[in-house]
């Protein structure tokens, strides 16, 4: 079946622009995660949804970052007034349930802020 998809795959933004990154999880997956991966580093947790409820947003680096999943399926990560330090790969993952279920990752969106 289809895996996790993300769009766009690449995004170049000028500093100060707002961007929106989309994630389509595997159909039927309850849990959805966003991670940020800086160059040469491992993914770092940003936020977690169970259905439409955002249960943990402790990893969001600032109030410029906002995520939503209004209908419990597709999720959008929005970054307002982008800064150069926001340049990274943003990975979305989904799992069938919560807990220790395997997380399946999408290909990521590479964001470059100039």
């Amino acid at each position, binding site marked *: 079946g289809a895996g996790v998809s993300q769009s766009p795959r690449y995004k170049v933004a000028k500093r100060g622009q707002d961007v929106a990154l989309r994630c389509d999880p595997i159909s039927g997956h309850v849990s959805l995660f966003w991670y940020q991966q800086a160059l040469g580093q*491992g993914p770092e947790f940003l936020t977690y949804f169970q259905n439409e409820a955002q249960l943990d947003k402790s990893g969001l680096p600032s109030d410029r970052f906002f995520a939503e999943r209004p209908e419990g399926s597709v999720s959008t990560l929005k970054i307002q007034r982008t800064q150069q330090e926001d340049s990274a790969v943003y990975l979305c993952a989904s799992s069938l349930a919560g*807990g*220790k279920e395997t997380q399946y*990752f999408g290909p990521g969106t590479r964001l470059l802020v100039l």
Partner: protein
Amino acid sequence: DQQVKQNSPSLSVQEGRISILNCDYTNSMFDYFLWYKKYPAEGPTFLISISSIKDKNEDGRFTVFLNKSAKHLSLHIVPSQPGDSAVYFCAASRTNDYKLSFGAGTTVTVRA
């Protein structure tokens, strides 16, 4: 602070030989450990996992060993194949938690 550490950024191994990847962690609350494999321009793909109640888990050519007292785990790939060339991430999660903490990754190159 980095709670999961992969101190070897790269590893080169000859095809057919064993690849050993190491991972250390600092948080004693971690009770579930995973290895992910990542090819360029793709997302990480789950490879193998181990619960803290075990010290070994094997799946085909891949075996993960856990030493809780040393807060250390390792991934063995035997025999190594050219398709194993990728970045390998060690990850961990805590009891009753869902988010994963990742190491920085080890790039494995399998030479023909």
